[in-house]
């Protein structure tokens, strides 16, 4: 048996354009490939990728494998899985990563089932065990108080998905060199019993949360639906959008679209303000890549303070109305929003 070698990431394209999550995957993969002293390869399935493959190299890939065919423009699980599976069997990478998008979450389990190997969903940390050369996959575990580290000792490739936006792409370096391989497609692999009849674009669904620079997020500590709804006004004053913990969503204060965390969205804003959120690993899983975290909580021992740059130990029942008063007063004075001052 040949020894599996190399780190692969499964990039994504939409309508022939490379999706930015591909660059995030390259940042994840680059660190692992460097530790293992192996190549980082990016597999792209779709159309019109070869022309753009250079940018994947600039973002960290040593080799880009382009699997192009007009019938591969949109993701269909059967052909994508067959094509990637045959490539994996041929080249035997030791690690295969994808994003936890609807594509990655559909494709990766199918691949792992066929390849008879392990798959860890929604990892928040990936590293290499130096003694065994094994991939250590870390994800928040049940109950929400711990992080579990998982490995795949004997089966290959070691597979994991990572949340989109959980890591920033590396800065592009146009001077990086790499190889672009255009693979030939075996047309017999393109069929599928599932037929795509159409696509209805929903512009409101294109979530502003994941692209927001400032997020005002609330949790159970806000105590009432009314106080949670004040966050929308605060966010409007500050030019941000509203996020929520799962508790807040479960209490019906916000829709699931606002949920940040393991079973919600991953965000990486410049500033994340957490109000009345305890900071369970399941929540942190979605916001730990924020550049700066400001937390307000009445409990000085709340775990959220461990990841905050600025912590305010305060009762929100008292602080929030006063903050709103200030923001409203300033708006009246300035005739405009913004941070004022």
């Amino acid at each position, binding site marked *: 048996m040949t020894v599996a070698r190399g780190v692969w990431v499964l990039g994504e394209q939409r309508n022939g354009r490379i999706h930015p999550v591909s660059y995030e995957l390259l940042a994840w993969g680059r660190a692992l490939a460097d530790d293992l002293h192996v190549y980082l390869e990016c597999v792209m399935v779709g159309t019109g990728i070869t022309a753009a493959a250079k940018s994947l190299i600039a973002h960290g890939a040593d080799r880009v494998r382009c699997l192009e065919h007009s019938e591969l423009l949109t993701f269909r699980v059967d052909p994508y899985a067959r094509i990637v599976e045959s490539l994996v069997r041929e080249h035997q990478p030791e690690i295969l990563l994808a994003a936890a998008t609807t594509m990655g979450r559909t494709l990766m*389990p199918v691949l792992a089932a066929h390849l008879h190997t392990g798959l860890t969903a929604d990892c928040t940390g990936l590293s290499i065990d130096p003694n065994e050369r094994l991939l250590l996959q870390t994800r928040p575990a049940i109950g929400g108080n711990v992080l579990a580290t998982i490995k795949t000792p004997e089966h290959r490739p070691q597979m994991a998905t990572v949340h989109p936006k959980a890591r920033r792409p590396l800065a592009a370096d146009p001077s990086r060199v790499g190889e672009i391989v255009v693979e030939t497609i075996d047309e017999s692999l393109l069929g599928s019993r599932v037929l795509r009849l159409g696509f209805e674009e929903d512009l409101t669904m294109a979530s502003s949360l994941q692209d927001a620079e400032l997020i005002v997020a609330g949790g159970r500590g806000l105590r009432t639906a009314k106080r949670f709804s004040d966050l929308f006004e605060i966010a409007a004053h500050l030019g941000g959008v509203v996020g929520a913990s799962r508790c807040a969503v479960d209490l019906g204060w916000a829709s699931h679209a606002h949920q940040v965390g393991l079973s919600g969205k991953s965000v990486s804003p410049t500033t994340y303000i957490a109000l009345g959120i305890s900071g369970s690993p399941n929540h942190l899983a979605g916001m730990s890549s924020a550049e700066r975290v400001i937390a307000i909580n009445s409990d000085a021992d709340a775990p959220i303070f461990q990841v905050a740059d600025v912590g305010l130990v305060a009762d929100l029942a008292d602080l929030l109305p*006063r903050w709103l008063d200030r923001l409203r007063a300033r708006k009246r004075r300035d005739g405009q929003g913004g941070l004022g001052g």
Partner: protein
Amino acid sequence: MLARIVVLIKQVPTTESVRLNEETGTMIRTGMDSAINPLDLHAVEQAVRIKDNAPDTTHITVLSMGPSQARSAIREALAMGCDEGILLSGREFAGADTWATAYTLVQGLRGLFPFDLVLCGERATDGETGQVGPMVAALCGLPLITYVNRLTWDEGTITACRAIEGGTEIVSCPLPVLACVLRELNEPRLPTLAGKVRAHELDITVLDGEGIGADKSLLGLAGSPTRVVKVIYPSFQRNTQLFLANDEGMEAALDHLETSLRRAP
């Protein structure tokens, strides 16, 4: 012609106080309050709605792998209108990861051939992987439709809407097919009293590894490619300055907040 539907349901703890076995990293499931995985209720509801339209020619089997108390989750589904319950249970199944779980369920499904539709929840609230449904489809060789928020069944074909990034994809597929469903699909019904009585009278078939003709080396912890190696409590990541509003006063706290917000990170 008889339409046969199988719903895969999982029993999950209803509280968050699940404990992990420190040695194996697997969940300790005994002595917990548990119920049917909330997302699986939508899969059950979908099956029962198909049956509502053709009560005499639709047969719904509920299949679950779990400890013997998972019977109660199966009874919940029977009370909603399913016809038959099968529990895959045995020591050899303990500690299964998603691959071993999928393998076990597929062995159970083999005994139910032929069927037209397999329904799963999109993910379970305990493991939160969402991997089991797609893996079952792959190991069974069934076409797979994930993220389903609408489903219609018409003369041997399923048409479904998939909620994906940026919109809704509409697909169709001839039967048989496996679909993983979202919360938005429907509003699960509450079991009626008559349903509960009926569920109570139905026998639930319990099968172990031998009963489903499984390869023992592929079951449970032994058959799981993944291992939990460490369970840690998250460590400090940032250098936090704490500001105590009670000591400094609320207005001073607000000043501090606003100054922090103005400062670029």
